[in-house]
Each structure stands twice: as C-alpha cells, then as structure tokens.
C-alpha cells in the first residue's frame, strides 16, 4: 500500500472521528438554539472549547467494570460499534475515486452488513452488563433491528435497481442527470427512518431511552468505554448522513450537473461535506422535534407499514426500469 493511500486513509479516519467529537458540541448548540436557549457558549470561541473539555473529562473518568459483568464481552462490546461503523465508512465515496477502500462492486451490501453487525455491540454490551435496564435496552435493540433491517435493505433496492449497480461510486455517477431523491422519494423516507433506527437516535432511541431505561444498554458503562458508544453513535450519524447524500442526493455532484469548472477540483469534496452536514443538522432537528414512539408502535409500524411500502417501492421501481428498457 502506497504512502499516499495511507495518508488518505489516515486523513479520512481522523476527519470522521474529529467530526464525531465536534458533533457533541454541534448537537448541544443546535438543540439549545431550537429550544430558545444558547447551548454551551462559554468555553472558548462560540463554546468550541467544550469539545476539548468534554474529551478531557471523559478520558479522566474512572473506567469502572462492574464485578458482576461478563468482563471480556463487556470490554469488547464498545469496540465493535466503533470498528463496524468506521469500516462501513471505507466504501463511502467522498469525491470521485476518493474513498478508503476504493470502489467496491458490493459497496451497498458491505455497508448494510457492517451496520447490521453494529447491533451486536448493543446486544453484547447490554447482555454482558448483567443489569436489568441494560438487558431491556439490548432486547429492544434486537427487536428494533429485526424490524428495520428488512426494510432498510429493501428501501435501498430501488436505488440499486435504478443505478444498476451495488457500487456506491456507480450509484453517484448514475445521478448525473437527476438525483434519486425525485424518483426514489419513498425509498429515501424509508431509508431515513431505518437510518434513524440504525443509529439509535431520537426519536428511535428506544434501546437507550433515558426516561424509561436510565441509559438503556450502556447503563453500566463509564469512562472511555461509554465514550466509544457515544462517539460511535455520532460516527454512525455521519455514516448515515453520508449514505443518504451518496444514495439520494448525488454524493459529490454539485448542482452544476455535468459541468466541470477548471481549477475547482476540490468542489466535489465541498459538495459532499455540505450535503452530509445538512443531513447531520437534520438529524439533530429530528431529535429536537419528534417524540419517541412506544416500542411496540415502532415494530408494528415497521412490519405493517414500512415493509409493505418498501416492497411496493421495489416492485414499482423494477417495473418502471423494465418498461423503460423495453423488455
């Protein structure tokens, strides 16, 4: 592996983790603004020092492992969420030809697989904690994941059918004459809901619903192990935002479809970052605005409404593509 490639991988990794850390501040600031407060604005310029302060705090905290916990599993669980979510990032194209793992022809499947594996982190963490709340959180997470994983994959099928490829780069290039948000609007909404459930973000943060389960699956976690769940959640938010951008909003493609400006080679990166950032802010807005559904309501909604809609979307998209190709 060339040193240039290593540098690129290192840069992307660092940028993602740094953005995730920054999101701690962004989220608190934005939630504050949407609740008619200011949010943390004291430490440093605009309160940006809050990120550093939070990091120092979480690193200094006592990293306690409960004596009743299943020690090896307890330690491994937070690492799994970080590893799987960061691995899923490997195939997300940030600019033409720029991604960690290059252009894979199974990109979408790889991302789906990795995000599904991330559920094990929650399950194992909740089980190994040997705590009632943690177990309830883990159980909810499992129930939630079997409800949304199905239509998450099916929602993406529409995009895959239209682009004719599982490669994320091909999917972006297929959107040069129009983003998929138009023809795949239903798929977009379904994937957005599934992405929310995937990242355990409000309104679908049932596994950690702090009003019901103290902190859900990470009740017993402290110090940097909790920090890994925390940052892992933010990395997952970035991942889902990046995926929504890539799959439905033309990835690195700017509004000047097909038109390339000489000397503006960095524009694809700017577009990608802007769109992803907008989605991250939208995720925070969702958290500020929408209340959490009950756990059985979510499963019912997933199986009885979203799954049929995803199937319908797949069938209709397939029919259209077949009609257009003249088969």
């Amino acid at each position, binding site marked *: 592996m060339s040193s240039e490639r290593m540098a690129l991988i290192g840069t992307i990794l660092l940028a993602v983790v740094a953005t995730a850390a920054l999101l701690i501040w962004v989220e608190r600031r934005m939630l504050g603004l949407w609740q*008619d*407060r200011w949010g943390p604005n004291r430490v440093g310029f605009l309160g940006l020092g809050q990120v550093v302060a939070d990091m120092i705090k979480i690193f200094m905290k006592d990293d306690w492992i409960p004596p009743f916990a299943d020690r090896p599993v307890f330690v491994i669980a937070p690492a799994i969420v970080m590893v799987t979510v960061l691995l899923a990032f490997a195939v997300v194209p940030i600019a033409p030809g720029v991604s960690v793992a290059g252009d894979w022809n199974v990109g979408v499947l790889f991302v789906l697989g990795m995000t599904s594996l991330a559920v094990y982190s929650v399950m194992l963490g909740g089980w190994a904690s040997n705590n009632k709340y943690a177990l309830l959180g883990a159980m909810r997470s499992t129930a939630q994941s079997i409800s949304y994983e199905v239509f998450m994959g099916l929602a993406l099928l529409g995009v895959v059918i239209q682009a004719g490829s599982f490669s994320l780069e091909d999917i972006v290039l297929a959107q040069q004459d129009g983003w998929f948000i138009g023809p795949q609007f239903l798929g977009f909404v379904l994937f957005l809901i599934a992405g929310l459930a995937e990242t355990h973000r409000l309104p679908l943060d049932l596994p950690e619903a702090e009003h019901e389960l103290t902190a859900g699956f990470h009740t017993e976690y402290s110090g940097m192990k909790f920090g890994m769940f925390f940052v892992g959640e933010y990395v997952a938010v970035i991942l889902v935002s990046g995926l929504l951008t890539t799959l439905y909003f033309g990835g690195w493609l700017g509004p000047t479809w097909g038109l390339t400006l000489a000397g503006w080679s960095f524009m694809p990166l700017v577009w990608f970052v802007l769109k992803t950032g907008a989605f991250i802010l939208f995720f925070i807005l969702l958290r500020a*605005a929408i209340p959490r559904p009950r756990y059985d309501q979510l499963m019912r909604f997933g199986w009885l409404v979203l799954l049929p809609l995803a199937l319908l979307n797949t069938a209709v998209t397939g029919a259209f593509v077949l009609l257009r190709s003249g088969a």
Partner: protein
Amino acid sequence: MSRHLKEHGTPAVPPPPVSPGGLRLIVEGFFTQLLSLWRVFLHLFARRATIEYPEQKPYLPPRYRGRIVLTRDPDGQERCVACNLCAVACPVGCIALQKAETPDGRWYPEWFRINFSRCIYCGMCEEACPTYAIQLTPDYEMAEYDRRNMVYEKEHLLIAGQGKYPGYSFYRVAGLAIAGKPKGAAQHEEPPVDPRSLLP
C-alpha cells in the same frame, strides 16, 4: 339538553373525536411531523429565554431572601438587642450570639455569628426579630472556595444603613428606660402612673 339532564341526571358527553386510521393516519401523520419539524426549525430565529448570568443579572425583588444583614437605627446605633429570638426561630440553628449590655442600659450582641453553609434563607429570623435588626437582602453571590469562609461574624453582617425599615428605632418606641430616656419618654407613651397616689 335540559330535558336530557332531567331524564338521566348527567350531562350528555359528546363522543370523543375519532382518530383517523389506515392510510389517512399515515399521510396525516407524515405531514404533521413535517409541520412540527418546520415549527421547531423556526425557533432558530426566536428570542432566547436565557439570561446570560454573570454579564446580565436577573431582576430580584426587594424582598428577595438572600444574604442576611444586621441593620442600624436612624442614629447609627445597632438595632439588635440580643434577644436571641432569631436563634430560637432558626430551623437549622445557624445563628449564634452572646448578649452584652452597655453602661446606659442597652442590650447588644457581643458577638453575632451566622453559618451560611447551613442557612436555608427561610427568613424566619427576620420574622422573629422584634427590632427589625436582622434582614434578608437580594444578594446571593456568596460562593466561597473554603467552607470556613461561609461563617459570617458580626463585622461581616453589620451594615451602615437601615435596610427595609427606614426611620425605625426600637429604643424610641419602646417603654424601656435607658440612660437619657426615662419611663414615659418614648413615642406615644403615656407618662407613668403612680398607683399609690389618690390624685386624679
């Protein structure tokens, strides 16, 4: 309606609105959620409810129960007569004092101590005080790094002014005789009666 009341004794309750079901629920739910997203988003431009404290102080009413002070009467004398009622009234027992007496017959506290790390700012001492000496003020910025600094002595408590009751002086209205003010010399006080005298 009234006939209905007569027949059944209870007013007719209108049936609860039927919540939509099926497809209508999904479509309506989707748009109402979008609407609430938009409304929350608009709060980005709303006025902040925050009072940015150290720079911007909140308004405190004059009768706010904050730091306790000992006031003086219009002549500049201490109002406190060391009666110990405040110490008795204090539910947490944070007030302690020692009575002393001046040569002219006035009582005063030799020392007066309030432990503000125990004080709950209930204002019972102020209500108990017969001479308006002890008063609570609208000041709450009393944080200390050392707990021992929370114990206020008399010189920390005593202020130069009269506080909330200007013009009041206990010895001018009380019937107690002190040097320079005999019995019957107080405001609105009748001259002393000699019970053994037969004169009208």
